[in-house]
């Protein structure tokens, strides 16, 4: 189902002054009480506190990942194929069937490479920008600490898997030194805690992404309508009643667009200084309005003024002089994980899925999401093609406990599906479209984990 909020051009102009009128309106109608929910942040694993760059490399994160996943997979293998021996890449013997566990590496012909910048021949024609780097010649390699082996056979499709996924493979070494894969075991969905669906009443969580304040695409009016809807300044009593059932707002990345072209190392002229901070100020004003009424979590995205590599650290509080005054305003990490009334919600601002789209194939965004859950890894392509902090002793992207809701921001299209796990786990997958392109937000009902969209449109009749 979909709710549409339409404002015609005539009304548009006055929309801007809604916040100012707020005080008056509330006096006239019967007081509606906003519903509450209990919130528990689980972002700790994504926080980088005392870790610094001391010359460590990326091998450790792969090592940690392999170590964790292998322990897990070994325990599964005993149920999967109890009679097949398990060995390492080194211990492979030609013709002998066995199971090996290791990290996949996808050898890709078209993968962009930083060394290309130095290539001798500068081609006269500019390179075509690829949206997808797949090539029919791509092949997979399995690696553990002891070595690598090229994978053959048709069971394992290179178009599905990406570098960094840890799997168990059943097969045998061929004469050519390849490993002929007969069967694949993925880790599958992680165990899930029982959702405490104690709330027998409708409570809604609103997910927004890609507001892109300050970009040419964004329509400030559209966002203001959303803010007004959430804060209950729109519509009649019935509509306000629905708004009162919104218990939480999550902003999944790309809230502003900063003209980074301005930053070229030179000192900025004062007019450029303000151009740099204007979009953030604009966002802060809107956020202040939301935070005044309902708890809001803001996650950084690829375009936000935050660090680049995952996990992205919370947007700095200095950016939000207005909204930071409210304790309902939380600046969170990306990925972001929290519990709301016992429902575990995990999500990212989209980088992990966008990267998978570039390096593998799938029917839709939701399929990529399913895969990350089954691989038990939020972002397997880190650090290979997706930047990440070089952790030394852990891999924070491993999914140890399966969430009830898994969302990804900044996608092209809205999509949702229920994923069922082998042990009865149920996960609501949500792909959140970019607000600046679609004017759409996603609303999730905590009672039954159903969701629908809410569209905001402004029409200008000229």
């Amino acid at each position, binding site marked *: 189902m979909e709710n549409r909020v339409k404002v015609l051009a005539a009304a548009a102009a006055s929309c801007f002054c809604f916040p100012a009128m707020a005080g008056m309106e509330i006096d006239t109608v019967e007081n509606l009480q906003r519903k509450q929910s209990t919130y528990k942040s689980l972002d700790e694993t994504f926080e980088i506190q005392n870790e610094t760059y001391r*010359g460590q*490399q990326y091998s450790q994160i792969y090592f940690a990942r392999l170590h964790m996943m292998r322990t897990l997979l070994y325990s599964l293998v005993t149920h999967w194929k109890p009679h097949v021996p398990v060995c390492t890449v080194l211990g492979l013997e030609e013709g002998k069937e066995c199971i090996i566990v290791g990290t996949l590496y996808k050898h890709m012909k078209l993968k962009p490479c930083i*060394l290309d910048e130095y290539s001798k021949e500068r081609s006269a024609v500019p390179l075509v920008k690829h949206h997808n780097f797949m090539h029919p010649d791509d092949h997979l390699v399995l690696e553990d600490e002891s070595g690598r082996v090229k994978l053959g056979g048709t069971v394992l499709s290179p178009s599905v898997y990406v*570098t960094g996924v840890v799997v168990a493979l059943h097969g045998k070494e061929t004469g050519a030194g390849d490993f002929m894969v007969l069967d694949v075991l993925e880790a599958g969905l992680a165990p899930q805690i029982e959702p405490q669906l104690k709330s027998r009443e409708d409570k809604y969580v609103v997910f927004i992404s890609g507001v892109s304040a300050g970009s040419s695409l964004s329509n400030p009016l559209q966002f203001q309508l959303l803010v007004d809807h959430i804060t209950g300044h729109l519509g009649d009593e019935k509509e306000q009643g629905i708004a009162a059932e919104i218990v939480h707002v999550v902003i999944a990345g790309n809230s502003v667009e900063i003209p*980074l072209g301005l930053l070229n190392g030179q000192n900025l002229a004062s007019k450029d200084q303000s151009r740099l901070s204007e979009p953030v100020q604009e966002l802060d004003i809107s956020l202040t309005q939301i935070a005044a009424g309902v708890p809001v979590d803001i996650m950084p995205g690829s375009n936000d003024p935050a*660090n680049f*590599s995952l996990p992205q650290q919370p947007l700095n509080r200095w950016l939000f002089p207005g909204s930071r005054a409210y304790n309902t305003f939380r600046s969170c990490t990306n990925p972001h994980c929290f519990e709301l009334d016992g429902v575990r919600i995990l999500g990212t601002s989209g980088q992990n899925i966008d990267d998978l789209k570039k390096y593998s194939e799938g029917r839709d965004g939701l399929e990529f999401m399913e895969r990350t859950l089954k691989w038990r890894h939020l972002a397997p392509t880190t650090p290979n093609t997706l930047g990440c902090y070089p952790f030394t002793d852990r891999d924070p992207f491993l999914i140890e406990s399966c969430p009830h809701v898994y969302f990804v921001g900044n996608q092209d299209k809205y999509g949702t599906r229920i994923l069922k796990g082998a042990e009865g786990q149920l996960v609501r997958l949500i792909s959140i479209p970019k607000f600046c392109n679609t004017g759409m937000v996603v609303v999730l009902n905590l009672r039954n984990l159903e969701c629908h969209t809410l569209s905001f449109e402004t029409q200008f009749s000229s």
Partner: protein
Amino acid sequence: MYYQQQQSHPFLKIVVALPTMVAGCRGILEKGIQIDGLGMKNFLTYESNVLFALRFMIDCNVVGGNWIEVPAGKYRKTSKSLSNCQLEFDCLYSELISHAAEGEFSKMAPFRILSFDIECAGRKGHFPEPTHDPVIQVANLVTLQGEDQPFVRNIMTLNSCSPIVGVDVMSFETEREVLIAWKEFIREVDPDIIIGYNICKFDLPYLIERAATLGIAEFPVLGRIRNSRVRIKDATFSSRQYGTRESKEVTVEGRVQFDLLQVMQRDYKLSSYSLNSVSAHFLSEQKEDVHHSIISDLQNGNAETRRRLAVYCLKDAYLPQRLLDKLMLIYNYVEMARVTGVPLSFLLSRGQSIKVLSQLLRKAKEKNLVIPNVKRAGSEEKYEGATVLEPKAGFYENPIATLDFASLYPSIMMAYNLCYCTLVTPEDVRKLNLPPECVNKTPSGETFVKSNLQKGILPEILEELLTARKRAKADLKKAKDPFEKAVLDGRQLALKISANSVYGFTGATVAQLPCLEISSSVTSYGRQMIEHTKKLVEDKFTMLGGYEHNAEVIYGDTDSVMVQFGVSTVEAAMKLGREAAEYISGTFIKPINLEFEKVYYPYLLISKKRYAGLLWTNPDRFDKMDTKGIETVRRDNCLLVKNLVTECLHKILIDRDVPSAIQFVKNTISDLLMNRMDLSLLVITKGLTKTGDDYEVKAAHVTLAERMRKRDAATAPNVGDRVPYVIVKGAKGAKAFEKSEDPIYVLENNIPIDPQYYLENQISKPLLRIFEPILKNASKELLQGSHTRSISISTPSTGGIMKFAKKQLTCIGCKTLLSNSDQTLCSNCKGREAELYCKSVSQVSELEQIFGRLWTQCQECQGSLHQDVLCTSRDCPIFYRRKKAQKDMAEAKRQLDRWSF
């Protein structure tokens, strides 16, 4: 030698029992012998300095890479085998049937190619020496020619080594066993060709000398002759074309050594010949480079670390094989051997002249001529070289047509019948009284008879070479099979090179048979033709002659003439070019032929032998950017120069956007002065050939090597290494060589570089060269504009005044010193938090991006995700960037952390 009128002379053929006796016999005859009744008499010997192998091949009409048939019944099995060959039999040499490389017999033999590499455990601070340092690993790959995967992969290691997938790992307790195992392996595998990288100068001699040190007497039997020991000779290879190089000659009977390093140095002009940069260039793959000081550590570790080393060693053995395949070297070299008739091994160990000599001898044999053994003149007689028409420098925005003489020098020799046997000596000119219509007098004053009196050998050789090339090219067009194509392409290339080297053979003063009369005649004809062409073009294509514009020859080099016809489209220029070529060709004696090949549009002519332009061979789109003599490849410049020049030319020629090129230069210079330059772009690399004391003049890289030795002897560069350095700011008036510094040291200690040095000594000249024809006041505009005003210098973290300095936080916004109560911003900058934070964080984000890409790339090269990157290849363009990214990242993170309070 020289034109002779009589038909035949009597000669005496002396046959000796052993090849080595020829030289002695020759010496005796040349010195003179006492003959009863005639007294002391000395003789001019003929063909007495021909190498035995070549002699045999010529007599049996066998060329290199030749299929030989021994007819049934004409041979018998040897009673006692003398060799390790697979088949061994006796037959009479005259029974051999040599098959010309045509049809079925043009196929390549299935050579067994062994590619190997060794690792030695060097001591800290020393390059490995066979008298001290053990051989710890030998990696071998054996491939059958024409197949794309090796069929044997193994590695012999000293001490245990964990297994490697697809590789046979053989571990031994002692070094002696390793060496013996390798020897046995060679005998068993019986390779025809041994390849590797720098095997001739390092790997093979090292193994042999090491075996000698260990007293393994049976080791050096590696050849196919039983009990024949391998010998090492110091050889110097000197050639006009390739320069002088010292090497070691290791004779391994029956196995051709094909050192890829020698091939690269011979056939390609590269900025660096390390295996790393060669593979980066041809295979576009960076090779991991493990510093030799780490090798010992890996060896002394456990089976796992030795495995790591083994993987590296195997890769080093595999790369030469890949290069061999990729560059189709076997095809090209075998074809060259077939065309010129010399054995394959000569092609690498000897210069061009042996190839011409081989052809000359073969041809002479056919014609019943013998070639005298002329004493080498050794004099540095000079003759006038090729002509260069004075260039009219400038930036031409009209299409420039290029008229080329196809194989000019060979054509001249053919057209005017220039040869040893057609040259008439000045006295003979007087004596013989030849009719003037039967001789050609060359512009340099020599006289040659025309072909109706005596057809020259050289012209005949050339004719054959060129017709063969034409045929090969025609076949190439028809060929479908990729292998056949490779063979034919190799052949036509070999033919072309051979044809061109004939001229050089006559002119080389230290060669077998120099004849400056021929070479100076050739160049004088060449000069005449260029002048002639210029005159014809400028006379015919005029407005008076009914053409739209007056044509102008703007430049002419050895065998090409650049003409500006004045037309504005490529198509029109091509039409006129073709017309001119046809018209002018008509005025020359066959087979001299002027061809129209290409149009440059636009064209930047800088000076003699320096130009750049977009090359068009069809009117629709250009083929590529063509540059000559411009700093795009020179090795002793830093990368910055190359990048800058390439980018500028790209902008000027392809984008046709001069202002943006100027802007680009200005930005780069500003970046340089503001210390924003990527350090790896500034690294200059020079080879350390001798120790410091042996150098007469102090050079930057030598003094640096000395200094580094004092700092840490273990990692300091040794003789033979390449020393990378940057020029840093020194004391006032310090000499350039005193200001050199190790790039890593610079990075670690924040030492400021000297932008002025780079500006004045590195980039200014090449830039001005390009821009002078385009821009007035180029120097003023580019090198002194307002973009050079602001300068930023990093503060060194060690030494000098910094010991006395006190560090205090400054405001992120305006660099004012902060009072103790403030952490991030001064009171004036408060309120700009959002903006300034955005700036800080965008810096971090950019660095993180680079950090990730650089380090994952290194993992990629290394071929492993779970192991730390060890590579210290300084040839790798991202080595310094990687290091810098790590350091900058830590710093930027610290800056960012100041915001979190």
